[in-house]
């Protein structure tokens, strides 16, 4: 069978190894660029967050260097987030299939995947993580600008200064919660996921098991309907 598999309906690519392309080169690059920026901001941000973690700043050249680069890496993360949004916004829309899947999420957590309804390219949890990061970055950007140029906020609008520090840490903590789960699932829990974001490919069985609707879409498989 000579097939042409696609990541998403508009991106086609030849399949030479019987594998399916899950992430294009561009998607992988932007994922890892984003992760570089995020992890830098995480390390330096945690250093500013607590005296007990201030030593983390030493890992990236000390406090002043960490303070200098943190907002720039934050802008970098915002840029890669915008890019990811443009790449993935259609794939990340929450569908009827996701709602059915989310009602059975308990089975996913307990690794009883057979009991789950089929989902598309991304499951409900992945979509939630995407939108958490998207809106988290939005808040971090706005409050971050407030922190960066705090002296330029007029004294009469000083509540903006006070709000900025608070929104920034709350939004950061929310993204950290998502980040912990994301890293755990991507590396330890869902086997095959980590290689897919590095080399881009997954096996047919992997695609069929975890993202059945997407698998059917890219391969034209109609066996389930029979």
């Amino acid at each position, binding site marked *: 069978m000579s097939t042409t598999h696609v990541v998403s309906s508009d991106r086609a690519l030849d399949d030479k190894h019987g594998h399916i392309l899950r992430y294009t080169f561009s998607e992988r690059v932007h994922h890892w660029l984003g992760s570089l920026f995020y992890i830098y901001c995480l390390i330096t941000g945690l250093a500013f*967050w607590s*005296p007990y973690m201030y030593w983390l700043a030493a890992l990236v050249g000390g406090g002043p260097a960490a*303070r200098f680069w943190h907002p720039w890496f934050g802008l970098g993360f915002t840029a890669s987030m915008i890019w990811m949004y443009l790449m993935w916004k259609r794939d990340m829309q929450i569908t009827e299939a996701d709602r059915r899947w989310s009602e059975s999420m308990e089975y996913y957590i307990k*690794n009883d995947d057979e009991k789950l309804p089929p989902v598309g390219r991304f499951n409900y949890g992945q979509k939630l993580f995407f939108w958490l990061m998207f809106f988290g970055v939005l808040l971090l950007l706005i409050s971050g600008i407030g922190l960066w140029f705090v002296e330029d906020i007029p004294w009469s609008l000083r509540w903006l200064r*006070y709000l900025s*520090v*608070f929104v920034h840490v709350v939004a950061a903590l929310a993204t950290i919660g998502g980040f912990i789960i994301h890293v755990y699932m991507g590396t330890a829990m869902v086997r095959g996921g980590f290689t897919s974001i590095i080399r881009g490919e997954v096996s047919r069985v992997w695609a069929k098991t975890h993202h059945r609707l997407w698998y059917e879409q890219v391969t034209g498989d109609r066996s389930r309907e029979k």
Partner: protein
Amino acid sequence: MSQATLAIRRISGHAGAAPGKDVERDEIVCKLIDTTTCIGCKACEVACLEWNGYTFTDTVFDNSYQTMPSTAWNYWNLIKFNEHEREDGSITLLMRKDQCMHCADPGCLAACPADGAIVQYTNGIVDFQQQNCIGCGYCVSGCPFDIPKFNPTTKKMFKCTLCVDRVAEGLEPACIKSCPTGCLHFGTKEDMKDLAETRAKQLRENYGIKDAGVYDPAGVDGTGVIYVLHDVNNPEAYGGLPKNPHVPWTVRIWKGPAKWIGNLAMLGGILGVTLHYLRYGPKEIDAEKHEGEKP
């Protein structure tokens, strides 16, 4: 900046108590500014620049005596001139020397993340240690008086030190020394408070200034700089001196409960995924079920 000679009570961004805390005790020092005898001569502004080694920068003319709109990283002491209409319609000029208030409960120190960048000595002086400062500006968010200022060249924060280098040697701050009318006083907090109350009483009883009083705001546990004001009920008229200053509640929550909740949540998240792995393990593809299928 003369940490070596003074004991420290509080230290910013520090894991654990300040080293040497409570080993030494000291008199709390205080600057008293009597706005009723200030003539706006700006000698204190000049003395401050001279002692601290700064030169005059460009001033701004805005049809008043005001040197510039606010203090700057290299201009720590500024008289704020405010035209004020009295009840009878006549105009008076309210003049207030603006500088760091040296709060007993400093918001800058509470907000600061850098270990040792802000210290409070046992004598109550709040001082920035630029060698430890990372220039983040959190102190700006924590200050209820809009005092810390950023030097964009060195990327460090600066403010009035209450001439800690002079005080540590038994001298009064430079501004006090220069004041020609004696509206500035320096001594222990107790003595200055007493002197201020005596002066306010004198203004009320002998001069008929019925609202004269002492500004020593309780919201920050009192300050190391106190004012005698003609109208203590309206400090805002003196160039925006806040009526009830306190460390912003967002800073309090951020540095208090949010820190604990956030740290517990992060630890809980790491613990949670670890326990999940131990209980349920990885999602592996069931090889038997898919036997015979193309991999």
